[in-house]
């Protein structure tokens, strides 16, 4: 600015000042936009905690749902969430990891491989409610599983499979090729290389990805409404063929009730749900930081 002024072109100097003024305003609005998201998150959390805090007490996790807000709890929903998410993890993650191993280590580069990649990317973009329709049509009606824990776990499994697969693929692909070559040089077979060298090194990354997809499944509501939409589940599932409810659905039920007290019970449930998700995410981050290997 001063350089231009020294040259003596006042009009140019004025225009430059104006341009720089506009630029400062622009940077400020960019900062404001970034701040907006963070602020929104803060307001949301404060609002939920303020509304739900009075209901966060032991009864919240030891009581069944009730018509009376003071007695309403989340026991069956909490147990249902653990059942469904646990069963889903056991059924889905081995398949996801195996598929990722196949894609990275075995699949011939070519049309089939490209087709698989595009297909997985597309699956990840299918709305979750569509998986609910799939679960309803395929598991509940066609395979006659009923609206059971098993049907719920399988439905959620299909939903998170692409996500877990993509995460595992990234982890496996990031193991450098020299690791494999060293093992091959010692006469190891392909599976031995994968089993003893690639997988152990990729495991932290795989676990991080699977934990994140697990937390996605725990927070998911829409597809399970189609399978576990029972308004009132005052019992715990005995087997995987029983009815169930999960935390987000129970929250949905409480929000939908007309009495304002139930909104507060719902807020307390949200605190519970967020606490679980936060724990899962923290575990994933801890795992990633602890075992981050720089090649």
């Amino acid at each position, binding site marked *: 600015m001063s350089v231009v002024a020294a040259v003596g072109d006042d009009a140019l100097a004025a225009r430059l000042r104006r*341009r720089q003024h*506009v*630029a400062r305003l*622009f*940077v400020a609005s*960019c*900062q404001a*936009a*970034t701040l*907006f*998201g963070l602020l*929104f*998150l803060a307001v*949301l959390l404060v*609002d939920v905690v303020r509304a739900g805090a009075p209901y966060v007490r032991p009864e919240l996790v030891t009581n069944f749902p009730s018509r009376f807000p003071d007695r309403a709890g989340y026991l069956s929903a909490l147990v249902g969430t653990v059942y469904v998410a646990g069963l889903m993890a056991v059924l889905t993650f081995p398949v996801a990891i*195996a*598929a990722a191993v*196949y894609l990275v*280590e*075995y*699949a011939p580069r070519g049309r089939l491989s490209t*087709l*698989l990649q*595009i*297909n997985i*990317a*597309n*699956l990840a*973009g*299918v*709305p979750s*409610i*569509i*998986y*609910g*329709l*799939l679960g309803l*049509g*395929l598991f509940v009606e066609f395979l006659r599983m009923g609206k059971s824990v098993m049907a719920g776990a399988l439905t959620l499994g*299909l939903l998170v499979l*692409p996500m877990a*697969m993509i995460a595992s693929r990234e982890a496996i692909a990031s193991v450098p090729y020299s690791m494999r070559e060293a093992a091959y040089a010692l006469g190891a*077979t*392909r*599976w031995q290389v994968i089993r003893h060298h690639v997988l152990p090194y990729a495991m932290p990354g795989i676990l991080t990805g699977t934990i994140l997809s697990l937390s*996605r499944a725990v*927070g998911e*509501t*829409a597809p399970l*409404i*189609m399978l576990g*939409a029972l308004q009132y589940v005052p019992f715990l599932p005995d087997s995987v063929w029983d009815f169930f409810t999960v935390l*987000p659905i129970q*929250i*949905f039920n409480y929000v*939908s009730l007309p009495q304002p007290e139930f909104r507060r019970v719902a*807020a307390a449930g*949200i605190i519970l*749900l967020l606490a679980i*998700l936060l724990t899962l995410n923290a575990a994933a981050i801890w795992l990633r930081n602890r075992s981050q290997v720089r090649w």
Partner: protein
Amino acid sequence: MTRKKRRVGERLIESGLAVCGLWSILITLSIVGVLLFETVAFFRLPIEATNPEIVSRRADLQRFAEARPDLVGRPLALVREFFTETTWSPLFSNKRFGILPLVAGTVLTSLIALLVAVPIGLLAATYLSEFASARTRARVKPVLEILAGVPTIVYGYFALTFVTPLLQDYVFGQAMAGQNALSAGLVMGVMILPLVASLSEDVMRAVPVDLRHGAYALGATRMEVAVRVVLPAALSGIAAACILALSRAVGETMIVALAAGQTPNWTFNPLETVSTITAFIVQVSLGDTPYGSVEYRTLFAVGMVLFLMTLAMNIVSYRIVRRFQEVYL
């Protein structure tokens, strides 16, 4: 001998893994299969209703034939009604099957979400990519991405119990319905905000630094570099991010089911209660719909429409990204 055994074992393992790899194709096929099967069944209702033997056996078909005698034997009339008429009431005794109100609700809430997410997301991406220090970026970006990880039921709760009362009390008064497209759209915009911001930031940072230096050398300010050089260079990637965000908004369920309402309304007034395709699916699932009933089949017919809408957007977005990637390689 052992080498031979080993080779057999290797083969077995490889084929086992291949089956898992192909599993994803099977999922896609079963999604398309289930949707297609039930959608065809829905559009065949008028044909089934012409067969007195089936109608006398099935209460649902009886109800359908009684509610819509004008459709019996005219499958094409049902197809035309589905795509062109503006009343959607398959749950009432007066059954109408015009999907347009649901599509309107879906489009309305999604567009409001885009109006929030695109400007704010782009500004945030510009800040993170062009102005923020590396340390600020490393801290802010993950926090911003937490927004995408908040369960949608939480957003739905927030839209219904915080945003709507706030807007009613201070802006719109009683003109705003307790459940409305605006609150749902606004909060949904925040949900997809990190998608726009994060993906756009990635493509903006991929713009070669030489381009920026060229502009600086000509005397451009930082804003001029960001808006006139980086933004146009990253435009295709940004467009892909926005389409992906739109697709996410179209498929989002819990926010609209809670905050937008469940009344199919042929309107584009954001203050009114609307229903979206996803909200309708939730609404039907909350009741007890017996397998094979008319209501059960409409679920899959509207689900098919939703699936095709999001699929089209995902494919377009994927194509744009692929073409974009080639530019700087």
